[in-house]
């Protein structure tokens, strides 16, 4: 076996990228999702339909977008209208995957990107919802991309910006959110996580290469369910790494 050198960030991007299937529609937020989408288009999903918040739809990600409204987000796109068109597209159920980030996540996949500490006297004022809440409300399956530690994976959020499963089974529907929607995966530097089909609580599905289940549990601030079989994610392939480094982020914005 050939030893391959890569950093945890690269592993994270590859894991997210592998979740993006060809011919599916995916709402792409700033940062890692952009890298993952570009990698996916160049690897296994040439017709991944990327949707960027301010109007770009079906872009070819020759150059890595650095802003969700930049021209790279609608480069050679199929359609480039406004934010309302994108939000409405999600509202009508046309967007399968929504890739999201956040500063905190709870066992039900709810996300905080608004404040750390008290709302009126915050320790840290975060960027806010932006399109996050809309994506979490309307896309069929949301995928959160997070750094994995105890301050971020917590039992109770300081502020619930974006809905996951709210307080548990049935809560989304009771709140009026579209039936059948909700969190699908969480991708971190340590693991790939999903949700228990009944309890809707977060569940460990796979660890990143070289990471133990114990490490994941230690870095999670709430009780994590374990899948019956927990696999180890495959390492980034040499091809993934080459494309990621030489083609996706050739300007070295992220990596």
């Amino acid at each position: 076996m050939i030893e391959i050198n890569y950093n945890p960030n690269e592993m994270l991007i590859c894991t997210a990228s592998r979740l993006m299937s060809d011919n599916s529609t995916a709402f792409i937020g700033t940062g890692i999702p952009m890298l993952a989408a570009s990698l996916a288009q160049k690897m296994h999903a040439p017709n991944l339909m990327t949707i960027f918040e301010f109007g770009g739809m079906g872009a070819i990600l020759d150059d890595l977008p650095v802003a969700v409204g930049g021209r790279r987000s609608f480069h050679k796109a199929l359609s480039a209208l406004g934010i309302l068109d994108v939000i409405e597209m999600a509202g009508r159920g046309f967007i399968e995957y929504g890739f999201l980030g956040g500063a905190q996540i709870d066992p039900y996949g709810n996300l905080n990107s608004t404040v750390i500490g008290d709302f009126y006297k915050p320790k840290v004022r975060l960027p806010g919802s932006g399109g996050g809440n809309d994506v979490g409300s309307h896309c069929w399956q949301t995928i959160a991309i997070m750094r994995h530690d105890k301050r971020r994976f917590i039992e109770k959020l300081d502020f619930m910006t974006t809905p996951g499963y709210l307080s548990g089974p049935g809560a989304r529907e009771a709140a009026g959110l579209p039936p059948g929607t909700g969190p699908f995966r969480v991708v971190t530097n340590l693991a790939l996580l999903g949700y228990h089909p009944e309890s809707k609580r977060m569940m460990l599905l796979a660890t990143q290469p070289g990471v133990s289940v114990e490490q994941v549990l230690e870095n999670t601030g709430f009780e994590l369910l374990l899948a019956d079989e927990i696999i180890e994610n495959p390492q980034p392939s040499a091809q993934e790494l080459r494309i990621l480094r030489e083609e996706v982020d050739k300007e070295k914005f992220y990596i």
Partner: protein
Amino acid sequence: MNILEEGIGELLQPPDIDAFREWNRKKNKSLTDKRMTEAEAVRRYIHSGDYIGTELYGSVRCPMSIVNEIVRQDIKNLRVVGQGVYETDILLAAGLVKEMDFTYIGLELYGISHVIRREIDSGRLGKIVEWSNGSLVWRFKAAAMGVPFIPVRSMLGTDTFKYSSAKLVECPYTGVPIALVPALILDVGIIHVHRADQYGNCQIDGISGFAYELSRASKTLIVSAEEIIPTAEIRRHPDRTIIPYYLVDAVVHAPYGSHPGEMCYLYERDEPHIQHWAEVSKTPEATQEYLDTYIYDIEDHQEYLALIGEERLKYLQDIVPDRG
């Protein structure tokens, strides 16, 4: 209407559609030359305490020449609808913002805003009401339609709803709970476009972000444009007029008006400049120095462009790729 739940956020700008209608009735419908300088547009149309919105998406198509002029004229106590990046950061850094309808303030890939925390701590930024991007554009849309509210399925079940001024009702057709958000009417909207004629008929290339809705939700609209074109050109392609003249109060000619942001098909982002702001905005001292250099010590947008330098601006044009 039976209200199940209400957000506790204050209604910073009430959805008074009838007053909006009266205002619009009095607006000038004639074809008047509205070209003026940034200084004149800001002096005439933006006042302390006004509720304003800058239209943009990320560091793209930002009306920076107008924002800089607001800072230069030191117009205080602004109430701002905040889907913003660099330009809102500048207004906050200059201590001009008192209240915000808030959805996103940050520096995109450079992370969180450093100045907003200082403005909250200082007490200058006294009120923040939460929304999502979708809710805001729908609020603009309600104003554009001339109705006081619009139903949305965003924010439901979250603290974003709780700290907004949305209301939860039961849908009279389906029985499911649904959020209502109030129309958002701006005192002043500010939009940067690719092209406009002297009357304010505007064209935008590429994605249009919030432009359609925000322009129609504004009582007063200041437009800056990379290029001023003849009206005959507008009349040849009326289907390109996303903002018609009757909405517009001031037309400002502003080449590179979005710098350091990008303008699609014309020039790219000035990445080092934006990075520089992300860095210097970490401390009040360096922030002040930045504002001095790029705004306070500068006469106008022409001088700003001279400071950035012809070579740099030319470079930002040259790296624009082909459309495909």
